[in-house]
């Protein structure tokens, strides 16, 4: 997804003079043509993430559509108050594109892990949050974001599904219809979720827009009273959205995701997924446990 992002962003800079890219050293040199031809709109502020977001706000206030890019901890957590005030409270837009996801670079340890990014941004009003599961979807969502003036968070990850789906921004995609329960698989966890539920009679919805949450499609597709939420970031990040969507429906929620603990492991994202029950085996165990309580 990351490589595709640089290609698409470079194309957007060349095609639309409103597009600006603001970097804080991460990603420099990856869009060489745009950096050379449009140096006034492809701006590296150095390792200064608070400034990166402030500059994006100032660019938005002077008519530009800024794309801000860094690793998730440095795009969301470090400049969080700038996201809240410079963009949110001032009511201007930007596209924040992160890489690294929850623990793509797990070997760097906790400083470079950000399983809480979506929960943090969900706490701020007015953000559209995209979690693509395939480079083609990331490309589609970035282009969709570029056409608006909204505040958008685009969360890119190393983990990817084998095939892109025909997603529509803002909507849950109905992947499979079943009879016993509803499983919502988010972004790159679609493939392991499908593997985990291959022989189970459940509806699978595919979520690439986490906010605003598509309550309408969930209600229209609801199967049984169990909703299993599978998210590649902090467990339960979207539980309140599901509960709100189903406030007048008897339901149960099983939230699968990254536990809210102080992570002290290195290794790979695959090892972290396995440890947190976010591989096919772990997801299957959780779904079966939730279904058994349904019986």
């Amino acid at each position, binding site marked *: 997804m990351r490589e595709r992002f640089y290609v698409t962003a470079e194309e957007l800079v060349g095609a639309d003079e409103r597009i600006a890219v603001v970097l804080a050293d991460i990603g420099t040199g990856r869009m060489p043509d745009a950096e050379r031809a449009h140096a006034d709109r492809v701006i590296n502020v150095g390792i200064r993430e608070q400034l990166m977001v402030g500059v994006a*706000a100032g660019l938005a*206030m002077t008519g530009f559509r800024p794309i801000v890019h860094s690793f998730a901890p440095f795009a969301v957590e470090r400049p969080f108050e700038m996201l809240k005030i410079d963009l949110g409270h001032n009511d201007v837009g930007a596209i924040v594109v992160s890489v690294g996801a929850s623990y793509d670079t797990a070997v760097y340890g906790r400083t470079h892990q950000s399983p809480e990014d979506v929960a943090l941004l969900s706490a701020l009003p007015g953000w559209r949050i995209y979690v693509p599961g395939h480079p083609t979807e990331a490309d589609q969502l970035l282009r969709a974001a570029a056409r608006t003036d909204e505040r958008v968070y685009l969360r890119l990850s190393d983990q990817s599904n084998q095939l892109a789906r025909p997603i529509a921004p803002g909507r849950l995609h109905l992947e499979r219809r079943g009879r016993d329960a509803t499983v919502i698989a988010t972004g790159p966890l679609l493939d392991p979720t499908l593997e985990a539920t291959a022989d189970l009679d459940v509806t699978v919805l595919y979520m690439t827009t986490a906010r605003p949450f598509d309550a309408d499609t969930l209600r229209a597709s609801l199967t049984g009273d169990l909703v299993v939420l599978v998210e590649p970031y902090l467990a339960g990040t979207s539980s309140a959205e599901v509960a709100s969507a189903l406030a007048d429906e008897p339901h149960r929620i099983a939230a699968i995701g990254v536990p809210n603990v102080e992570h002290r492991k290195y290794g790979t994202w695959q090892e972290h997924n396995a440890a947190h029950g976010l591989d096919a085996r772990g997801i299957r165990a959780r779904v079966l446990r939730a279904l058994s309580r349904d019986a």
Partner: protein
Amino acid sequence: MTTIAALGHADLRRLMDLQLGDEKHTPSATSTLDVIWVLYDRILRVHPDRTDDPDRDRFLLSKGHGPMAYYAVLAAKGFIGVETLRTFGRYDSPLGHHPDRNLVPGVEISSGSLGHGLGIAVGMALGLRARKSAARVFCLVGDAELDEGSNHEAIVFAGRARLDNLAVVAVDNRSSSYGWPGGLAARFALEGWSTTTVDGRDHAALERAFGVEHVGRPHAVVAVVESKA
């Protein structure tokens, strides 16, 4: 026909006195009074009928605290009604104890949390330069506000980016807890800024300071006023 006499500097104290409830920040407000007046009266190319002109100059009250002087000047210059000043701080008032750009005509940024305005100002200056606009960006910070590290991200980068359409006015009333050894101007000069230090109550000196040529460099005006004490 009723005519409304133009309001001037002599009216500002009266206009400030209409705004009750934030007396804690009266020193903050009074420290900026002359600087903001000189900017709006003599420097800024802005007009209350064209607050969305893409080529207007921008004034950013970064520190946000004690905006009574700011609102008084905006009222004197016709951006907001004088009667609105009496609503200061009320639930439905557009005039909070920290300004909101979405509520007050002519206010360029919502501020109050320290250390945000200068980064936004740098982005504005970059945007205006990319658009080849002649508009300029003026950002007011306080000497204590400069304690916030985010300002220094902006100060360093603005110097390297040679943003000569950006000016900072740092109002110095010695309220920073640990002070600025060597003076505030030195902090900016170190990063390649043009600097001028003046009496923040001297209108002619402020006007000259804002008029200093600073081709290829951002400009910092340190406006020294009486100590907060």
